[in-house]
């Protein structure tokens, strides 16, 4: 029996409507988990989506029986309001359900093919589509390759083959006189790969941000003018601003295009010792968000001295009252261009350091490779290393790189063995 898969079927981002499709034997169970039972077939009905006691959204829900859906499997479609928050909450909830998983790219189509839901002409049309997709994939891959991922993966593969050959030679030709202790070289290779994989994964956070957007948090003492600054940056009133300290009790998010980069600005509650419980929670949450943000802008009162070393950019507010270097004013707009440019430059720098692992698939493949290398390393540093386990980890890493590019076969491994060692009695 196949898994039940789900995915957002419409484009990401803000829109009037977003469609989340669930396909597979557990489709109805997924609906039931959201509090929706007794769905009529092939007719849209308006229902409340509940996560526990909390109303998520009111949605148009459609149910297709097996054989009558696009994929040919039981399928449920949720047409929710096109809010990022609603969609991501819904996807998150579905991820948590047992037996459900996020669909791979193209998997709905593939299932439709496999279940014979497309007729002759459709299949031919789809074959064209697959070609088109490949062409796009090819270009995409080309882009990545020219960026260096291909070359880098080739180097990694060479290392893996070398380490595999060293290990396999000591396993399969144990009764031959292989002269050298291969373990130190294998350790070197594994350490090197582990470092490379980690660095690459680290860098992939930025590439992901290019797609999903950077988070920039504005932090500072209460009533220093964070909300005014945010309003000024966005150009419209979003956060409530008042002269009373502690107005913003929660984190306010605004998505914007900042010098060509997708940025979500976070306005956080004033960082002070809160007196009431609700505000204390707000401050706590603000600190947490600021900590996780890609960039923090610390806003200080005129005359304050720099205190928060963790901030990326420090600015002094109320420039209209106290002008000077690195000052801004939400009211007059003074220093805003400078601040925007400063944020943009810093984010841009991060973007340029990324760009190789552009897909989740790449990232998860490299995570797999990295975990195997960590496991191999643990085995290698044992007093009596289990080489067959190291070999198994090396194979898993190769398998992971196979997902990124080409293939590594046992023949390549044996080639390396035979060119390096004199084997044979």
């Amino acid at each position, binding site marked *: 029996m196949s898994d039940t898969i789900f995915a957002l079927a419409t484009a990401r981002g803000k829109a009037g409507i977003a469609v989340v499709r669930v396909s597979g034997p557990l489709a109805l169970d997924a609906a039931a988990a959201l509090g929706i039972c007794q769905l009529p077939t092939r007719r849209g009905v308006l229902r409340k989506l509940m996560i526990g006691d909390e109303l998520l959204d009111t949605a148009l829900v459609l149910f297709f029986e097996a054989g009558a859906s696009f994929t040919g499997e039981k399928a449920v479609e949720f047409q929710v309001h096109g809010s990022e928050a609603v969609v991501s909450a819904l996807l998150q909830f579905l991820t948590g359900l047992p037996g459900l998983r996020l669909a791979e790219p*193209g998997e709905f189509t*593939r299932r439709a*093919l*496999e279940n*014979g839901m*497309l007729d*002759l002409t459709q*299949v031919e049309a*789809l*074959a*064209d589509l*697959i*070609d088109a*997709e*490949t062409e796009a*994939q090819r270009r995409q891959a080309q882009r990545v390759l020219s960026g260096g991922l291909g070359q880098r993966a080739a180097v990694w593969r060479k290392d893996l083959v070398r380490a595999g050959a060293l290990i*396999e030679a000591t*396993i*399969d*030709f*144990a*009764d*031959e*006189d292989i002269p050298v202790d291969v373990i130190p070289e294998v350790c070197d290779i594994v350490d090197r790969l582990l470092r490379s994989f980690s660095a690459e994964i680290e860098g992939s956070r930025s590439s992901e941000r290019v797609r999903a957007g950077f988070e920039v948090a504005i932090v500072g003492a209460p009533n220093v003018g964070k909300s005014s600054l945010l309003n000024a940056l966005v150009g419209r009133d979003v956060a409530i601003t008042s002269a009373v300290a502690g107005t913003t009790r929660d984190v306010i998010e605004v998505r914007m295009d900042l010098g060509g980069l997708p940025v979500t600005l976070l306005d956080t509650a004033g960082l002070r010792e809160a007196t009431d419980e609700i505000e204390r929670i707000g401050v706590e949450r603000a600190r947490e968000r600021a900590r996780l943000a890609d960039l923090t802008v610390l806003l200080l009162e005129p005359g304050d001295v720099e205190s928060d070393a963790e901030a990326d950019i420090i600015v002094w507010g109320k420039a209209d009252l106290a002008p000077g270097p690195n000052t801004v004013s939400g009211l007059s707009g003074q220093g805003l261009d400078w601040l925007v440019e400063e944020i943009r430059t810093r984010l841009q720098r991060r973007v340029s350091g990324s760009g190789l692992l552009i897909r989740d698939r790449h990232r998860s493949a490299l995570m797999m490779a990295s975990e195997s290398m960590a496991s191999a390393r643990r085995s290698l540093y044992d007093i*009596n290393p*289990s*080489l*067959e*386990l190291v*070999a*198994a980890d090396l*194979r*898993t890493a190769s*398998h992971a790189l196979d997902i990124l590019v080409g*293939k590594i076969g*046992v*023949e390549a*491994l*044996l080639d390396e063995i*035979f060119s390096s060692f*004199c*084997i*044979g*009695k």
Partner: protein
Amino acid sequence: MKHFDVIVIGGGHAGTEAASAAARAGASVALVTQKLATIGMMSCNPAIGGLGKGHLVREIDALDGIMGRAADAAGIQFRLLNLRKGPAVQGPRAQADRALYRTFVQAELSAQQNLSLIEGEVVDLIADDSRIGGVILADGQSVSARAVVLTAGTFLNGLIHIGDQRQAGGRMGDAPSTRLGDRLNDLDLKRGRLKTGTPPRLDGRTINWSILDEQKGDDEPSMFSFLNRKPVARQVSCGVTRTNERTHDIIRANLSRSAMYGGHIDGVGPRYCPSIEDKVVRFSDKDSHQVFLEPEGLTDHTVYPNGISSSLPIEVQNAYVSSIVGLENATILQPAYAIEYDFFDPRALSAGLGVLNLEGLFFAGQINGTTGYEEAAAQGLAAGLNAGHLAMDKEPVQFHRSGSYIGVLLDDLRSRGVTEPYRMFTSRAEYRLSLRADNADQRLTEQGISLGIVSEARKSSFYKKLNNLNDLKGRLEKRTFTPRDLLEGGVHVSSDGSRRSGLDVLGAFAMTSDQQDRLLPELLNADPDIRTQILRDAMYGRYLDRQQAQIDQLKREELTAIPADFSYAGLSGLSGELLSKLQRQRPASLAVAAQIEGMTPAALALILANVRRSAALREAG
């Protein structure tokens, strides 16, 4: 005219296993060989098993084949290779007394029901356009059969080289089967040419053993057969010596006279079993190579110097042998030689080693481009079973690469073909951690029982072992431990509050056997074999789970069969290169297609879509 279900041509390791397996499966079988006296002969080195190879022998034994029991009966020195490495990569190996080995195999075949032994040369096949009908012997006699297993070894167009001397022949002293070879030409199968070599055989009485290192067998010998506990023959040691600079100088000075370096040989040789010429040339920085002096038997003075195979002229062989320490006065009983022979591209075979364009004809052994007794025997077993089943109108017998080295061997041959003589290595098995020599019976004996090829004695001892194993496993699984229990038992564990089963505990923590006994008293009374096996499964547990997930994935893709007559030509969007590969290799399933070099996900999707479409069209009629 005599009639049999199956005729097996050849009495080597492939032929004997094929004949035995087909007969055990219930078919009436005739084994035809040029000399009955050479049945079961070990024509190369006097040893069975090794890494990967020992795994194959255990698997043959798990299916009640001959090789494991024969090697146990003939074993004069047993060593478990990789004893200090993990259990998955340990392989049993034994020096065998050639005469004892041959005697055992011949006795086994003589006692086998449904099996006739015929001395004669097969000169022709009886076949119409699509089906085999039997064979014709050199004396003009015809024998009919529904299936024929050809295990021609190196006999096909065999050519022996000693220096620039050459002579047609299979192994020294045997006439080559050129007439049969000519006949096979008509089948229009793709051929290749390979070579292999042997060292000079020495007279053990002329070797100065007293100054040589001795290599002893293991104190606790590991047997091949699950039915045997200890060796029966007297145990002996091997000698160890080394080549030196003078040896290498002699070889270098005479390279042009070597058949291989003199340009007399066209075939491709195995890289892992290089001639001494090859070693000296390719690894010129090494000033010495190891030589193992292996006795060929208890009553035979012949010694097999493993490591110095050659195709140099006899006088050069004499010179280089006497340059080696301990061999100064050694007499050569039989000169070293290289042999070239034909093989057929195994990619033209079915999963059961049947020739695709002639139903009923099966190939097994060196004829498929492999080397080694064990590889030959494993193929013989598979081909014999499938020939028997075909003749009796039963389903083909399959071996999956996730379940056995036999499966790895058959799959490699069929999907990858052969570029040099194919030898088994443990590194060829991607599911190596679960395909262990110690659990071959659990992987295969049940299949053997359902095929009806396993003796009653093995059946009952297998079920007894399985019950004990499952019983102990069950008890260990039921028992659970808190971190506190473990700490009290001397196991260092963080107090994470999670309860662990006895099996988990064994897998997760390194413990002395005393600690294990104290924590899990169930282990105390267990049979040592059972205990060992449980510990091994526990040790590999985490990796085995991951491998199982990969196996499941592979099997799912294999379920998607591509019809044999599927037309790739009609698919728009396949690159020319892929198209020709697909048309040539005709993958049987989506999983096999995915293995083809250069295959893309898009092309796979395209094939899948069209496979579905043609299936739907066929259904619609």
